[in-house]
C-alpha cells in the first residue's frame, strides 16, 4: 500500500479538528436529559478544550494573573512541538486557519496567475501580527486580557457561537416553520422529522439572540472575505497566536530544503503557498511564516523541495523593525492606563455592569477574561451578552447579564464551568447558595433589585400583580409584600399587595426583572450594587446572612 500524500493527511487533519471544534461549540449548551435526574448539572464534554491548548491564552493568563488557570498547562502540548517543528498548528490543526484555507482556495479576479504568484510572495506587512502580539502581551503584563479580541479561538467562538450559529438557527427555524405550519398533515410530519434531526445536530434548544451579534458576524465575514484578495490574510498578517508560534519556531529543527539546481522558476510552489513564506528557489525561506502545509513540496514538478530535520540551509527568522517594536511596546503599555484613567473603571462604574456568578472583582476579571463568549454561548437562559460600553472600551465583548432577556438560573453554574481562564472562577451550586440564602455561607450576589414604583402595577395602577415575588428564588424571599387599601380609577376601594425588597436577601439574579409584566421597561430592575465580588460596590453596612 502506498503511503497517502502528506497534503492529503493535512487536509484530513484539518477536517477532523474543524469538526471537533464545531462539535464542541455546538455542545457548549446544556441540552437537558430525559434519562438522568442528577441535580448537579455539568456539561458532558470539555467544551472549552481548544482554549486549553492555546499557548497565547496561557501566556496572557500567566502574565496577567501570575498563575496558570485550570488546564491551561495543556498548551505546552502545542508550544513545545512548535519549537521543534514550526507552525504545524496553523496548517494542520487551527480551525480558524482551516476556514481561511478553505475560503482562500477560491479563485478571484485578483488572485489569478501572475497576480496570485505575486500576492503569495513574502510581504513586509506580514510582520504586523508580531507587533500586535507584542502590544497585547505587554498589555497583559499590566493586567488585561484584551489579547482575546484577536486570539483565533476567542474570535471564532465569539463570531460563530454568538452570531453565525444563531443566524443559522433563525434561518433553519424559518424553513422548518413553513413545513410545520403547512395545512397538509404529511408535510407537517416531514417538518417534524426534519426538526427532530436538525435539533439533534445543529439547532440550539431555543433560538438564541445576542447583543452586538450582527457586528460580530460582520467582522467575521469581513475577515473571511479578505481571503478572496490575499490568501489567509488573517493568518499571515493579524493572528497573534500565529505570531507567537512563529517566534518560538525560531529554534525549529525541521526546515525546508530548496534544491536550487532543480528550480526552473516555474512559480508553481508560490501558486499554492499558504503562509507567504517564499518557498521558491533563489530567495531565502521565511521559516516563521510557514504553516507546514506541504503544498510546495507536493506541487514542485522537479521535486526540488523537501522538509528535513536539521536542514542545514539558512532561513530568515522574524525580522522586525526596531521602531515598530517600540510602537507596539508603547501601545501595549498605554492600553491599561488609558482605559482605566477614565471614570468608568474606578469611580463611575456602570450600574448595569452585572457579571456572571463566580466572576472575579472587576480588576481581576478584566485581567483574565479573553472575551471568548463561551459563557454567553452556554448560558441556558441567554442571559449573558457581549458588553458594548458597560465595561468601558477595555471591557468590549466581556460578558454582562441582561436580566430583561434572561435571568441567572438558581442552580446553574455552567458559565463558571466553561470559562477557560478563571475570569469566572469555577463554582459549584452549593457555593452559589441561592435556594437557601439564609443558610448559605457566602451566597454569590450579582447585584440588587430596585423598584420603579411609578411603573409597578400595585404601586401605581391599583392592580394586583406580585409576579416578581412569585419568581424570587431565595427562601425566605427577598421580595416581601404589604397589603394596602388603594382607590382605583372608579373611586372604589380595593386591597392590593405592594412589593418591597430586602437587600440582605436579594442575590441579584434578575428573575423579578425578567418576569415583570411591564414589558418594555420593567418596574423592577437589578443594578450591580451589592455584588459579592466587590468590596466597594455595596449598600449595607452589615449584610445580614439571609
Amino acid at each position: 500500500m502506498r503511503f497517502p500524500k502528506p497534503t492529503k493527511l493535512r487536509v484530513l487533519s484539518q477536517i477532523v479538528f474543524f469538526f471537533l471544534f464545531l462539535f464542541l461549540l455546538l455542545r457548549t449548551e446544556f441540552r437537558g436529559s430525559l434519562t438522568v435526574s442528577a441535580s448537579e448539572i455539568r456539561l458532558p464534554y470539555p467544551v472549552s478544550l481548544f482554549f486549553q491548548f492555546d499557548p497565547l491564552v496561557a501566556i496572557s493568563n500567566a502574565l496577567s494573573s501570575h498563575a496558570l488557570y485550570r488546564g491551561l498547562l495543556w498548551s505546552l502540548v502545542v508550544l513545545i512541538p512548535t519549537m521543534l517543528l514550526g507552525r504545524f498548528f496553523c496548517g494542520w490543526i487551527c480551525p480558524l486557519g482551516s476556514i481561511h484555507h478553505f475560503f482562500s482556495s477560491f479563485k478571484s479576479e485578483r488572485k489569478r496567475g501572475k497576480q496570485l504568484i505575486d500576492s503569495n510572495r513574502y510581504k513586509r506587512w506580514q510582520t504586523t501580527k508580531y507587533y500586535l502580539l507584542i502590544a497585547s502581551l505587554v498589555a497583559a503584563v499590566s493586567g488585561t486580557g484584551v489579547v482575546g479580541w484577536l486570539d483565533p479561538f476567542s474570535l471564532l467562538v465569539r463570531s460563530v457561537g454568538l452570531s453565525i450559529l444563531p443566524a443559522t438557527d433563525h434561518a433553519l427555524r424559518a424553513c422548518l416553520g413553513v413545513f410545520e405550519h403547512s395545512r397538509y398533515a404529511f408535510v407537517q410530519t416531514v417538518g417534524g422529522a426534519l426538526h427532530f434531526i436538525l435539533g439533534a445536530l445543529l439547532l440550539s434548544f431555543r433560538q438564541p439572540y445576542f447583543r452586538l451579534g450582527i457586528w460580530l458576524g460582520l467582522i467575521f465575514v469581513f475577515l473571511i472575505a479578505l481571503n478572496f484578495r490575499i490568501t489567509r490574510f488573517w493568518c499571515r498578517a493579524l493572528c497573534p497566536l500565529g505570531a507567537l508560534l512563529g517566534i518560538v519556531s525560531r529554534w525549529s529543527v525541521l526546515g525546508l530544503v530548496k534544491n536550487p539546481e532543480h528550480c526552473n522558476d516555474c512559480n508553481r510552489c508560490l501558486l499554492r503557498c499558504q503562509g507567504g513564506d517564499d518557498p521558491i528557489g533563489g530567495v531565502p525561506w521565511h521559516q516563521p511564516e510557514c504553516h507546514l502545509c506541504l503544498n510546495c513540496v507536493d506541487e514542485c514538478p522537479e521535486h526540488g523541495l523537501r522538509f528535513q530535520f536539521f536542514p542545514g540551509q539558512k532561513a530568515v527568522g522574524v525580522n522586525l523593525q526596531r521602531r515598530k517594536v517600540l510602537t507596539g511596546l508603547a501601545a501595549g503599555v498605554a492600553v491599561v492606563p488609558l482605559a482605566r484613567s477614565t471614570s468608568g473603571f474606578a469611580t463611575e462604574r456602570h450600574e448595569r455592569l452585572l457579571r456572571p456568578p463566580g466572576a472575579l472583582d472587576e480588576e481581576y476579571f478584566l485581567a483574565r477574561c479573553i472575551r471568548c463568549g463561551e459563557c454567553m454561548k452556554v448560558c441556558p437562559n441567554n442571559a449573558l451578552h457581549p458588553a458594548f460600553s458597560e465595561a468601558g472600551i477595555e471591557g468590549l465583548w466581556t460578558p454582562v447579564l441582561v436580566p430583561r432577556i434572561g435571568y441567572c438560573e438558581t442552580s446553574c453554574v455552567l458559565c463558571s464551568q466553561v470559562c477557560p481562564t478563571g475570569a469566572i472562577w469555577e463554582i459549584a451550586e452549593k457555593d452559589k447558595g441561592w435556594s437557601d440564602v439564609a443558610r448559605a455561607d457566602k451566597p454569590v450576589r450579582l447585584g440588587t433589585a430596585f423598584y420603579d414604583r411609578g411603573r409597578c402595577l400595585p404601586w401605581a395602577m391599583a392592580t394586583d400583580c406580585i409576579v416578581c415575588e412569585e419568581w424570587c428564588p431565595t427562601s425566605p424571599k427577598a421580595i416581601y409584600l404589604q397589603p394596602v387599601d388603594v382607590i382605583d380609577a372608579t373611586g372604589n376601594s380595593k386591597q392590593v399587595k405592594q412589593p418591597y425588597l430586602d437587600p440582605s436577601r436579594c442575590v441579584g439574579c434578575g428573575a423579578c426583572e425578567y418576569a415583570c409584566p411591564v414589558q418594555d421597561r420593567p418596574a423592577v430592575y437589578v443594578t450591580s450594587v451589592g455584588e459579592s465580588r466587590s468590596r466597594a460596590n455595596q449598600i449595607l453596612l452589615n449584610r445580614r446572612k439571609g
Partner: protein
Amino acid sequence: MQSDSIHLSRRDALVKLLRVAGAGAGAAGLGFWLSKHSWRPEPTLAMAAKRGHTIAADPTLPEIAVITGDDPAQLTRQAVEELGGIRRFIARGDVVLVKPNIGWDRTPEQAANTNPDVVAEVIRQCSNAGAKRVIVTDVSCNDPRRCFQRSGIAEAARLAGAEVVLPDPAMFKDVDLQGETLRAWPVLDLFLNADKIINVPIAKHHSLTGTTLGMKNWYGMLGGPRHQLHQKIHESLVDLADFVRPTLTIVDCYRILARNGPTGGSLQDVILKKTLVAGTDPVALDAYVAKAYWNLEVSSLPYLKMAANRGLGTYEFEKVRMQIKTL
C-alpha cells in the same frame, strides 16, 4: 456595407414579439392579482378548540379520595382505585395528557414540582388501561431543561413509558379560550389534541391566592405574556378551568410547600403530609386542600365561588362524597 447587420425573418420577429407579449401579460396579470390581494396584515384569528375532558358522574363512587400513607406510588394506585379504578377514566386507545407541575428548577425534596413517583404511577395506570399515548408536559417558568431534569419527572415519566415533551415555541397555537376574561391566547397544542387530561398539581403556598392548587396548574399550558394573568387571577383561573375541565385531578400533598411558594427552595419550607387528594370535582378539591392545609375559607378564595357559578363544581366539599383512608 453594414456587414454586422443581421437578417431577421418574419418568424423570428413574431417570436420576439410574442415573447414580449407573454412576459408583459404575465407581469400585468401577476400585478393585478397582487394588487387585489393587498390588505393590512393582522395576526391569524384564534381557533376554537375542543373543551372539556370530563367523564360521566357515578353516584355510587366517592368524588374525592384522600389517601395517606408512606409510598407515593401506592397512594396513587389507591386513590384511583377508590374513585372507581383507572378504567373508569381511561379508555383503550386514548391519548392521555398528564399535566404535572414542572414549573421550577427544584429537586423533589424542595416540593416546588409534583412528586415524580406520583406522576410515574399515573402513567403506568394509564398504560395499563390501554392508553395509546401518554404524554407528560408542562410549560415551565424556569429553564425547562433544568426543570424537567432536576424535578426528576423527566426520568421517572420516561421509565414509566410516557412521552416527555419539552415545549418548543413552534408547538403553540393561538386558541380562543372563550372565557370572560381570557380570549385569544397561545396554548400548547398537546392540550388541544388529547382525549383525556389528568391534572397532577402539587399543593403550594402562593402569596396572591394563599395557595396554588389544581386550577392554577393550567397556567402551565399557556405561552404568551401569562404574567399578566395575575392582574385578574381569579377570573383567569376560572376561565382556564372552564376551558380544560380535566378527566381526573390528583393533588400531590405528599410534600407540601407551606411557605415561600411557589418556588420555595429551603427544606424548612416543606412539610411532609404523605397524602394525595384525588377527585373529579376540581373546585371541591381546591376548596378541600386549601382548608385542610392552609385553613383558608372559601371566602378568601373568590375563584372557588366564581367557578361554582360557572358550573365547574362545588366549593362545599363537606357535601360531596368523600373517602378518607390511611394505608
